[in-house]
């Protein structure tokens, strides 16, 4: 099996943009991805596209993928729309990697888009509940905030964790996002602010929840030959893992772990041939503060119940041993559902090329972790910076 490389990656600004559409936002992301390539590549070289979106708001429910590529002028390019809730573009990226590795295509476009802020509040709440398990979880009166809050309640009960342990996620990620001009909520917050915010779904408050966001992201996944032809710095997809889990939290073996994250992480580490301790940075799925804590433990950054300590000790701060969510994460950068997975890849790409807004010192390995729903589908990818003379 041959290797896949990230040749370019870019995103639109994330935020609330009443004047934009999913088409125009993806235009911005695509342009940014093309501009990030060292030696320009002709769009006509794109063989196939995989685009993720949940389709919040309805709008173009059918065939939105082809609508995007045709709007871009990628005329006739086979395009598949991928739907796996918040992991839609994590999975779109996985499809692109698989396509390149298979030898079927040399240049694949992976990406995602979502417009979430243009609907009435009632309509938005309807959409925020569509990826929970519908027959039982939804009809117990929960949207996503409620389900993650249930995980937080179980976690806090099991490990005697405190509200501040959740709030430190917000403080750290806002600190990073404040330096990212494309972040949705690019401001800093104090621990006091983050712990005193109004309740959304107890024990989660406003600062423990990511925003609803408009945005798009795009990544060019290419073969080694194409990568060497167009790039000065090779970013290899070193490891790929993915796993499904029961869609309803109540159907899973654990309420304080996302089992699909554990499985996807193990597969990614094994295929990359590295350990969690080899990582130089990570972008993890922090849709709610508790999700970042669970990610630390599910992905082997620490033992069970130790995530709060990692945050307290600054291990995942930009100057710590394992800087996490240097982009601001979903919390500060924003969470345009379908755009989030490839949005994380954008940050990994920038870090490994030394172009990040919050730059880690000369990283070699980075990880992205994208969760659909409350854990029904997860992708984990590991990226490696190669020297130009290095081999795959």
């Amino acid at each position: 099996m041959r290797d896949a490389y990230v040749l370019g990656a870019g995103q639109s600004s994330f935020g609330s943009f009443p004047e934009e559409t999913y088409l125009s936002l993806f235009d911005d992301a695509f342009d940014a991805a093309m501009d990030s390539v060292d030696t320009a590549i002709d769009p006509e070289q794109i063989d196939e596209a995989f685009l993720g979106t949940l389709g919040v708001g309805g709008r173009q429910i059918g065939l939105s993928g082809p609508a995007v590529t045709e709007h871009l002028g990628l005329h006739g390019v086979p395009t598949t729309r991928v739907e796996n809730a918040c992991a839609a573009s994590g999975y779109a990226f996985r499809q692109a990697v698989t396509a390149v590795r298979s030898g079927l295509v040399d240049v694949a476009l992976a990406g995602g888009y979502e417009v979430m802020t243009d609907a009435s509040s009632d309509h938005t709440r309807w959409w925020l509940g569509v990826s929970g398990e519908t027959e039982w979880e939804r009809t117990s009166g929960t949207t996503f905030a409620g389900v993650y809050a249930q995980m937080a309640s179980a976690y806090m009960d099991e490990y005697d964790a405190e509200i501040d342990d959740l709030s430190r996620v917000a403080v750290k990620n806002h600190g990073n996002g404040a330096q990212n001009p494309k972040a949705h909520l690019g401001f800093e917050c104090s621990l006091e602010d983050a712990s005193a915010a109004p309740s959304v779904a107890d024990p989660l408050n406003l600062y423990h929840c990511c925003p609803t966001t408009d945005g798009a992201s795009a990544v060019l996944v290419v073969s080694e030959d194409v990568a060497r032809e167009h790039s000065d710095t090779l970013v290899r997809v070193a490891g790929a893992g993915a796993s499904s889990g029961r869609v309803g939290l109540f159907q899973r073996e654990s309420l304080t772990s996302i089992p699909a994250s554990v499985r996807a992480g193990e597969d990614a580490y094994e295929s990359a041939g590295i350990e969690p301790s080899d990582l130089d940075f990570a972008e993890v799925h922090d849709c709610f503060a508790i999700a970042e804590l669970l990610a630390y433990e599910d992905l082997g950054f620490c033992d069970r119940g130790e995530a709060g300590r990692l945050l307290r000790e600054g291990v995942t701060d930009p100057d710590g041993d394992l800087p996490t969510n240097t982009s601001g994460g979903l919390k500060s950068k924003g969470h345009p559902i379908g755009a989030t997975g490839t949005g994380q890849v954008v940050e990994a790409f920038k870090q490994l090329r030394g172009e990040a807004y919050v730059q880690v010192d000369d990283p070699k390995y980075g990880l992205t972790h994208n969760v659909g729903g409350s854990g029904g589908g997860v992708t984990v990818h590991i990226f490696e910076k190669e020297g130009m003379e290095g081999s795959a």
Partner: protein
Amino acid sequence: MRGLIAGGVYIPRFRLSSDELETAWGTSHAAGVDQKAVPAADEDTLTMAVAATERALESTSVDRAAIDTVAAATTTPPLEEGDFVSRLVRMLDLPANVASTTATHHTAAGAEALSRALDADGTALVIAADCPEGDLADSDHPFGAGAAAFVIGDDPAVAIDDVAWHSNETPGIRFRERGQRDTESLGITTYERDAIREAVTSAATSLPVDLETATAAAVHQPNASLPYRITGDLPLSPDAVSAGTIVDQIGDAGAATVPIGLLSALDEADDDDLTVGAFFGGGSATAVACDGSLSVPGVERIDDTEPISYSTYLRERGYVVDGDVSGGGANVSLPNWQQSLDQRYRLVAGSCPECGGVTFPPKGACQECHARVEFDEVDASRTGTIRAMTVIGQGGAPPEFAQLQQQDGAYTAAIVAFETEGGSVTLPAQLTDVDPEAMAVGDTVRATIRRIYTQEGVTRYGVKFTPINDGER
């Protein structure tokens, strides 16, 4: 001889005092009513009927599969036309071939249902549940809520000697126009009182018993003074009337008031006591004579109450809330919901014949071994433990729960674990009848049936959980 084998009473926990009512309106049109019971936003006559019947059935060895007849009585079924008693049959797990009837249309409906059960063969259930509504400024004042259930059979604890009837056209006393929410009265005081007294006197004196010996009489009681006035021509003592009067504590619960009064009197009675019931409604009076006593679960909890303000009353009863679902509801089709009723009402789980693991709901692959199997049905315990919970505040609810939240405030959504023969299963459900702040992971809760949400005019009912109070089983 037929009569009562068992009984059960359910009164919602909220109480609105007449003082609160008077503060709100400057007057109270609820003579002698100290406080009235108020159903919570997720309660109605169906859920109250189920709660009372479960209490009655728990107090007896009668097997619900052996019940031959079910007769329900209410003036306020949740739907003017549609499923009522058939829902009770599923919620109570009664046999599908049970003979059923719904008496409605007037406050003596409970007598009609009781009479049907007495006339039937075998074991019968009589369930009266009601929560009338009226003009807030006036007729609503005394209206309360509650439910009573009777298990009727041969060889009873309380023999019902006879039923006597009197019928006459007396319009304008209490009526509700087609399509209207408010129960009205024209308030022609003397005419009304005379008509009721004449009918009740005629029915009661037709009973083959010496009324003077009655120790209790549950008499038509739209307020707390009328029972004394309409029995003025009968040799019933004021003490007897008082023993059967419950309206002062729960308000006028329509067709359920006399049945609740009757059960509460029988709960206090001695074995050789005579208790009389006298119903009136729609121009008809019915009198029954009951010999004996009965311990009735639920009566002891009538005083177990939570006072509410008038504004809370308006919200809980839905007087000030728009019920439309805005923004789209949950995509669970009615056929799918209907297929899951055994789970939603009775927590029926599936046991895997290969690994013995338990799966809830029992659909798809086994949650333990992931094999595709035909599950064996197992009933989960009705009590469980909270494993995770959250409180959904204003604005955090999916649209189909926005109305509940406007009426009842923030609600708790929990994941509850239940034990079965094959191990524990978990399901997500709301807690109800509880202060969200008072609950925590690890607390034990009990299953009950409540309204879940209403969409396209159809209310979905299903399991919710209530805290287990001290002293309860």
